[in-house]
């Protein structure tokens, strides 16, 4: 496989052909915030948090879906990009009903971490306070649409890893929502295997275990890398933090 050389933030790097800009940045510890992206799942480029600036291209491109090319000159952080990232997190905050103080995922939430990371100190957009529902019909788990950021990680993990495809996306624009089956209640789903993978990959408190209280829902995502390695390489090795 050919090696590509590129410049990121003024430094020279080399990468494998076909690799994403995000992957190169992660390998070289160049910070880029992400939300919909999760190692082991397919890439959708939905959240737009990983937008980067590439010389010669008039628009910003998401690092997760952009493949490296020879001679690329990339900027991952500047005033404009930082401002856009803050705007994205602020819009996510204003669009749902995110109340960290009483949330089951408080202190274990990627949206909360992102707010700190991008320096969001206040939301200047009016909060929409949408009237969203909570589906507690499942025996083990709860889906709270109030806290959903539509990253679709649950949809992808269920489809790509578990193979059940219980979740999908319905509606358009502001009415867009994650649905179970053909918009049935989760408890009535005949395809859900109750594996809980969707709960663990959910970045916020939208999916949680029944019975947890404030701050108790810790998301353990290590299983994903273990399963993927086992499937692809036939190696059953425990995941360790790199």
């Amino acid at each position, binding site marked *: 496989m050919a090696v590509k050389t590129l410049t990121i933030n003024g430094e020279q790097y080399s990468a494998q052909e076909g690799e994403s800009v995000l992957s190169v940045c992660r390998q070289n510890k160049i910070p880029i915030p992400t939300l919909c992206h999760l190692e082991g799942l397919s890439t959708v480029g939905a959240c737009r948090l990983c937008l980067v600036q590439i010389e010669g291209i008039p628009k910003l491109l998401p690092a997760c879906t952009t493949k490296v090319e020879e001679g690329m000159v990339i900027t991952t952080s500047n005033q404009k990009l930082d401002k856009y990232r803050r705007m994205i997190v602020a819009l996510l905050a204003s669009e749902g009903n995110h109340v960290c*103080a009483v949330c089951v995922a408080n202190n274990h939430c990627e949206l909360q971490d992102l707010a700190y990371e991008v320096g969001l100190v206040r939301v200047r957009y009016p909060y929409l306070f949408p009237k969203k529902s*909570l589906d507690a019909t499942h025996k083990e788990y709860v889906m709270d649409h109030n806290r959903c950021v539509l990253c679709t990680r649950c949809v992808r993990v269920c489809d790509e890893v578990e193979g059940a495809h219980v979740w999908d996306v319905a509606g358009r624009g502001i009415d867009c929502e994650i649905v179970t089956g053909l918009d049935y209640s989760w408890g009535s789903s005949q395809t859900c295997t109750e594996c809980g993978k969707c709960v663990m990959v959910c970045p916020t408190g939208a999916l949680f275990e029944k019975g947890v*209280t*404030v701050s*108790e829902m810790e998301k353990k995502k290590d299983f994903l890398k273990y399963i993927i390695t086992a499937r692809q390489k036939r190696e059953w090795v425990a995941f360790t933090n790199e």
Partner: protein
Amino acid sequence: MSETITISPVTRIEGHAKITIHLNDKGEVQDARFHVNEFRGFEKFCEGRMVWEMPGLTSRICGICPASHLVTSAKAGDDILAIGIPETAEKLRRMLTLAQWIQSHALSFFHLSSPDFLLGFEADPALRNIFGLLAHDKDFAVRGIRLRKFGQQVIEMLGGRRIHTPWAVAGGVREAFTREERDALLAWYPEVRETALLAIKTIKRVHEQYSKEIPSFGNFQSLFMGMVGPNGELEYYGGNLRVMDSAGNIIANNIDPREYRQDFGEASESWSYLKFPYYKPLGYPKGIYRVGPLARLNICDSITTPLAEQERRLFKKLAPSSEAVNNSFYFHYARLIEMLFAVEKLEELLHDPAIFGTQVRSKAEINRLEGIGACEAPRGTLFHHYWVDENGVLQKVNMLIATAQNNMAMNRTVRQIAMQFIDGPKVSEGILNRIEAGIRCFDPCLSCSTHAAGEMPLEVQLLGADGRVLDVKRR
């Protein structure tokens, strides 16, 4: 010409309120009202949430007594899960409740009320506060602050943080308690006990100093309500309800808190966001009752700790044997006796080996669609009543808060003090402060008590010139 005097905001209470005093043509006090002008809406926005989330959610009602809401909500959760909680969990919850009493009662006395007593009702308002107190008697003020800190420290050791801990949950508590934590708390004890006794000594001096004014400080007949233990002793966590009349007769006893709705109703008035609970058998407004320290000290037959029991007997002597202690000023004394009890009782629990158990949380599914939790919060009996669907999603919430139950009594106190001290349209600052101090006897916490539902009941009456009701519209 008739005139209205407004005190807004009422200071050194927890929350926002105003008082209006209505004078007639002769300049005499015709009426006085305590208006609570903040609105919260907790009962409404908790609908649709999971029952397990409720302790953490409702404890956010207030920063003064979040632990009381936490425990009461967890108890309502226990009821919905229909489970008993482990012995250790109950004892730890009891410790949390006592710590809550200590910190809240210390706040009420040292920080909010004692500036009036020690600096004088007529003192400069700019100095009549905890800072003025620090300048006047630093040792006394610092001791008060440290006693409150002790209560907060217990809460932090149990729940991980001082304010808004989510530690008590439906089924028990989240974390166990350790011997190291216990030892650290016991090390505080000599000072804690001394300060609790100092507070009692101080209030007795105040009783002598203001002996002429006290008789008209919210001195009226009303019922008293609170929890008592199985032997009629002072109770703070779980017990049955007792109602006493102003003559000291027990008119209802052994009421299961789960049956509170049979005996207690809630009325509304257009001029306040605070509801007006009343004792149903006597109707509204005749069924006026008081809750909190004064009520609890009146209704109980004994206190199980020695020093507090000794004080309870002296407290009882404040009224003739044919009467309950009806004067609202003695809320302060009752509160300090309770603070002493909490200090003693907590020490007793700290020596109980059962508090170190590690089985602290029972788990279960939804086994009842309705649950009620009750507990004695610092300001009086607190009820949380939840209705859930079979998945544990809240369908309806009712919270009956201590301060609301004292609402009618607070209004009567304001009226009585205004009538006693105001004569003519010129009102001195000191007199206005006395009226506020009347409210402070009850140590109201308005952020808790105005949690009410979204839509205020509304009634519009069309009156003819002769006062006849021509039409009534209700929403």
